[in-house]
């Protein structure tokens, strides 16, 4: 095999470390945010996360945080839905609101030239949403349409079935979008209550990047968030892990089977997290050189793509994977996945494989910080994960510090082929 010319350059030094000057800003009112100032382009990207998200809901109010979040921009203060949208567009600002399993997220981008007006408008949506009955009902119909669509989407069916098997009566066991029944039954009062419980100052994380100074950001924070309630609803407790090993098949009329699989994972603050992270990258990272991509796609042509993920929710840690394969091939693909799960424990990895994965991870890390939008988003995520500000500069050395011994030990600890559960949605043959 010819590896000559290009393999030789692997010895090159690594790219420069990311130089991301992060400041912590505390507003006069006591709200903190992380900031990267960059005055090259006259706009600011702002990211806000409220911890809790759809997991704050009572079982009979499932979907209320999602409905509330989707209705925030449908009228606020003196503006109705249309007035709000017109005002936003006239400022050329963009706002988006997202209800997640563990948090409600707000992303905003606004021009320097009309920043105050844009923040006034965003403040209205966060503090004074109207939740007009007509708007709630209209958005509810859109949510219901999505729910009906999800009921016929094999990927959603598979992941929801998996969550149900894993999490018992914890909120993680069901979709945060709710069900047709729960969403239909939600009232405007429920939506108003969800707003008070989910958007509060005791759970907010903020990051900004772009054309704004620390002082300007401080004042902006008080104006934007200062009038939110001090506290919100209590967060849910730890989730149980009830997933038994095995295969669950759900019939679905499709030429392909969609497969969602996984086992228990590893906490973000575990001392073994970095070896586990590197191991997952080698086994099922979404890249073409990962073992599963090589074995299932490149060598056997059984799928278009396969990946595995270390997933750390606030109350559960998982190792998940997914792929699709034709009904007559899915059994073989599952066999290959199990074999690879075993092989990384029994045979381990080669020093070259570890080295190549490390140089990918360390080399690609600085490339993530390539714009105001991406930077603000990474910074708010770091705060949610409890990272210190200097994580940006220490992260690569944590990757580099992982040894072959670490890999061997953690592979045996992490990958349990016998624990894997596969949910298969389709009409698989020979399963």
């Amino acid at each position, binding site marked *: *095999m*010819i*590896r000559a010319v*290009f*393999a030789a*350059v*692997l010895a090159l030094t*690594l*790219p*420069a470390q990311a130089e991301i000057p992060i400041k912590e800003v505390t507003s006069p009112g006591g709200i903190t945010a992380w900031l990267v100032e*960059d005055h090259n*382009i*006259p706009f600011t990207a702002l990211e806000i996360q409220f911890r809790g998200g759809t997991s704050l809901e009572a079982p009979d109010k499932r979907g209320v945080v999602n409905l509330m979040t989707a209705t925030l*921009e*449908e009228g606020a203060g003196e503006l109705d839905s*249309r007035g*709000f*949208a*017109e005002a936003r*567009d*006239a*400022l*050329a600002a*963009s706002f988006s609101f997202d209800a997640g399993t563990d948090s409600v997220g707000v992303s905003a981008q606004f021009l320097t030239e009309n920043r105050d007006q844009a923040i006034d408008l965003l403040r209205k949506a966060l503090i004074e949403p109207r939740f007009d009955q007509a708007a709630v009902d*209209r958005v509810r*119909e*859109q949510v*219901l*349409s999505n729910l009906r*669509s999800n*009921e*016929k989407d094999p990927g959603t069916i598979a992941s929801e079935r998996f969550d149900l098997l894993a999490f018992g009566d914890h909120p993680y066991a069901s979709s945060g979008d709710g069900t047709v029944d729960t969403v239909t039954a939600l009232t405007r009062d429920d939506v108003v209550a969800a707003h008070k419980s989910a958007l509060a100052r005791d759970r907010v994380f903020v990051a900004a990047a772009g054309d704004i100074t620390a002082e300007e950001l401080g004042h902006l924070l008080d104006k934007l968030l200062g009038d939110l309630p001090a506290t919100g609803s209590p967060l849910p407790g730890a989730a149980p892990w009830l997933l038994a090993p095995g295969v669950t098949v759900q019939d*679905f*009329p*499709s*030429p392909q089977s969609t497969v969602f699989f996984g086992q228990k994972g590893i906490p973000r603050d575990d001392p073994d997290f970095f070896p586990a992270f590197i191991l997952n990258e080698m086994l099922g990272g979404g*890249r*073409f*050189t990962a073992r599963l991509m*090589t074995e299932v*796609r490149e*060598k056997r*042509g*059984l799928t*278009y*793509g396969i990946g595995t993920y270390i997933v750390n929710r606030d109350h559960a840690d998982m190792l998940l994977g997914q792929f*699709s*394969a*034709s009904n*007559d*091939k899915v059994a073989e693909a599952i066999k290959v996945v199990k074999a690879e799960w075993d092989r990384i424990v029994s045979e381990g990895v080669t020093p070259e494989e570890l080295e*190549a994965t490390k*140089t*990918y991870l360390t*080399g*690609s890390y*600085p*490339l993530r910080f*390539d*714009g105001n939008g991406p930077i603000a988003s990474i910074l708010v995520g770091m705060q949610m994960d409890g990272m210190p500000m200097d994580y940006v500069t220490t992260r690569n050395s944590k990757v580099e510090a992982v040894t072959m011994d670490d890999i061997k030990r953690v592979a045996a600890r992490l990958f349990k082929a016998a624990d894997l559960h596969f949910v298969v949605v389709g009409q698989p043959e020979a399963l």
Partner: protein
Amino acid sequence: MLGRLGAAVLLTLTLPALAEEPVTTFTLDNGLNVVVIEDHRAPVVVQMIWYRVGAADEPRGHSGIAHFLEHLMFKGTEKVAPNAFSGIVEAQGGDDNAFTSWDYTAYFQRIAADRLDLVMEMEADRMRNLRLTEEDVDTERQVILEERAQRTDSDPGALLMEQMRAAQFLNHPYGIPIIGWRHEMEELSRQDALDYYQRFYAPNNATLVIAGDVEPEAVRALAEQHYGPLKPSDAIVPRDRAQEPPQLAERRLVLADERVSDPYVFRTYIAPERDPGNQAEAAALTVLAELLGGNGQTSVLARALQFDAQVAVYTSAFYSGTSIDDATFGLAVIPAPGVTLEAAEAELDRVLAEFLENGPDLAALERIRTQVRAGEIYARDDVEALARRYGEGFSVGLTLAEIEGWDEALSAVTEADILAAARKVLDRRNAVTGWLTQAEAAPAEVTPAAAAAPEVQE
């Protein structure tokens, strides 16, 4: 657009705007066009090579070969071991991928700026030196068939769109899916791929875009070094494809599938594209799509069908004019529960007729102009997206001035331009209307999905 890996790219309307970042262009002696976009904020570079050949240039009966070759381009050369291309890029901290459209095929890497030399050498190498074994081709054919199964055959909405496109284009190869028809994909051979490769992959049929933390002179030196020695192809001729005749009869399709949740109405009209020398009409259609269906609260269709009449839960309008030949202008309506597709479509047509009568709301037009202007600022935050704009523009024959003048063209659109473009395009004789409906789940019934079911063998 189809990628080697990744989520389907939906047609969404954006209001493109070009950067104030410095852009430099030059051409090598062998015909390779080079575009350099500087952005020195982060030590990152994107290399993209855009070949001016795509699915619409395939030999008839060999649909999918453009996209299949895109996959096979990662298989190796004399210098790069089989399947090692991506691994070499990844070991340097970079990512790489590729995508295919009707008019172009593009390959890209995103990597630390000091690694540009390496990825240029590799990209230049595989422009002329690809090696393919029969085994590579056989395995990768299974992958593209799985890709088709995942992205098209498993999705009734995608199947309807594929059928509608085939009905929309009576004569032009834009009616053939990029991924290919399954029965033709199954027959694609190593020789098909090599013939296509040797004819079309050459410096005089490509645009190289380098964007990020680079200096134009340094890029020029590297480009001369790596791409300069490559021989041009003498088989490159202007792309003169079979054109559409006048479309005289409305076409209507119904696709019933048990996997459909909410039925919907989808309509496309044949529409002019951005023509070299005249992109004013395409600019008017871009603004028209934004006015009709670009905004969930304020657009004409949302106001009429979701707010006033409440006959729809979702409406949309879309148009993308960056193509060599005719484009399409599209509309979609998901009816509210209890509203039939027939009633929803009738409302859609009523609202369109009203719009053609009354013209656009001038305040809405002014807001769009503001967003176009602001878009120039926001666009500078994403140099990769800028690289795509230049690469795509050059690949469909636009000039630098036209690519950079697109914002100006959008800002110059008047009420009269919009009405003229709308009256010309929104004519149902030019249109295909598709209904996606629920089918009863019955084992004996042959649904379109079942009809398309794979007969893939190991």
